[in-house]
């Protein structure tokens, strides 16, 4: 299934790399990604969409949440 994952994170170097690494590990290909900083408060938002197996999506999202800088994470199915 296709999922979109919404992430709020501290704006620190390497966070996107860690997220991408967790996807690479499972051979998941990002279809769409958007990232930007919010005002000047050191917070970034990252959204990505990818084909992720239903069986692993919850674990994957919790693994992303383990990244120290990540503050909030949500995900939802993309409807066609």
């Amino acid at each position, binding site marked *: 299934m296709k999922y979109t994952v919404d992430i709020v994170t501290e704006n620190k170097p390497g966070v996107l*790399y*860690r997220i991408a690494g967790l996807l690479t590990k499972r051979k998941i290909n990002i279809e769409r990604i958007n990232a930007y900083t919010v005002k000047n408060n050191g917070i970034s938002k990252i959204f990505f969409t990818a084909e992720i197996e239903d069986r692993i999506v919850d674990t994957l999202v919790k*693994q992303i949440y383990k990244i120290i800088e990540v503050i909030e994470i949500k995900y939802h199915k993309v409807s066609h």
Partner: protein
Amino acid sequence: MKHTGAEILMRSLLQEKVEVIFGYPGGANMPIYDALYFYEKKLRHILVRHEQGAAHAAEGYARVTGKPGVCLVTSGPGATNLVTGIADAMMDSVPIVCVTGQVAAEFLGSDAFQETDVIGVTTPITKWNRQLTHADEIPEAVAKAFYIASHGRPGPVVIDITKNTQFEKAEFNYPKNFYIKKLKTVNKFNNGDIEKAAEIINNAKKPLMLVGHGVLISKAEKEVLKVIEKTGMVAASTLHGLSSIPFDHPLYVGMLGMHGNYSPNKLTNSADVLFAVGMRFDDRVTSKLSEYAPHAKVIHIDIDESEHHKNIHAHVPLVGNVKDVLKKLTPLLKKNNHVNWLNEFKDMDKKELAVEKNKQIKNKNKLTMDVVLSLLSKKTKNEAIIVADVGQNQMFAARYYKYKNPDSYITSGGLGTMGFAVPAAIGAKIGAPKRLVFAVVGDGGIQMTIQEFGTIMQEKLPIKILLLNNEYLGMVRQWQQLFFEKRYSFTHMESPDFIKLARSYNISGEKVVERNKLDSALDKFINFNGPYLLEVKVEKEDNIFPMVATGTSVDEVRLE
């Protein structure tokens, strides 16, 4: 007053109560080594012979002390040599803090001499990492590194410090009462979940507790005993949970997994409740997932939320520190016993024992790993620390030494890193100088980090190395025998004269080739004052059983 970055690093490490550093110098960390020269009395530095050894030694230190182990290496090859050890610590949740030197900030990205993208290389195998390019960043980064390594689920962290940062001057202000909110609140279980868990346990007919590394990390050994003794629940251990429950406890039924005992593997699939305590349902424990514990309701305590439902669905996931969860849970548990259930295990144990007896009769005058480890256990009153390498030696050490005290079996479980034992034993001995520390290692694994004999020599560490030499990469040979029709493809290994080699490092030793010399050789080995290598020429084609073959169910565990 301003200090150099290198000096600030020293002061920061002292703030974290660091006592020992395992390291190796080079161009990109020379200013740090220069500062260390003046801190020699306060910060003991152990010069390893290869950076991989530094990482494993730091792991060994962390595993016996519960405190993060510290490594210090240079950029480029120094850092890449550390990689295996960092990956090992990540897989086994071991807190280590690695400081790597890096080329000066102005050269970053230019392929400067000994530049490696250390952040890039270590990101997938660290809990956290950070590159520092200014001296004033050091105190907070160090505080953060130690906090992260040791809070929540422990793990490795890397601080990569560019050379200019080490020279640059700044004020030293160490953050007070530093914490990270996200890691501070580890207990996310609620009372409702605790009540649900208690109800399931109280109604269980065939409850089985699976204890893992989390019990040792959270020092919850007593709490575990309270639960099993109150409920009469039967308990089995993962490889990393070994030594959390004394071997002779009446409710303890042995080790789980691929080379675990017969009864706990077999009866996992009869259990109506599995109470997983600080373990992560690794594939070496569960084997074929679709046929694992089909009748069991699963209660799963893990400090790491992402472990719940990862491999096994938990009916009651409890996120938190094992000790805290058990303390909340125990008062709700009813006094009970499950004698018939326990007897099912005892009956199966008889089958395993019978096979073992037969083997002993067949091998009467032969040297086998089980005999060596059983005798070692007896002669050391089951009280030593065993640091096992990887392979058959590791599994025999897990199964035949009888663990009585916590933190007594240390090995590389998740990564299965050959070469772990000798350097990890160095760290363990330094962390627990009063305990007897044995490295148990095979003829293959010992040669992966044998250069650390030099470290043992220089530090005069009274480590005892038990080399079980079968002239094979034994575990691989066993698989070739069982699953590849005995095609022993490149698993026979010729080795140097290990005793001579040890002697050249000032390590005394003896080689045993006959069964009737084993007793006296072990006595000398155990009582020798100083480092010692005991090489035992064991049967070449012996196998470790029981065994759950890959792809089969735990209840298809083979006795022979």
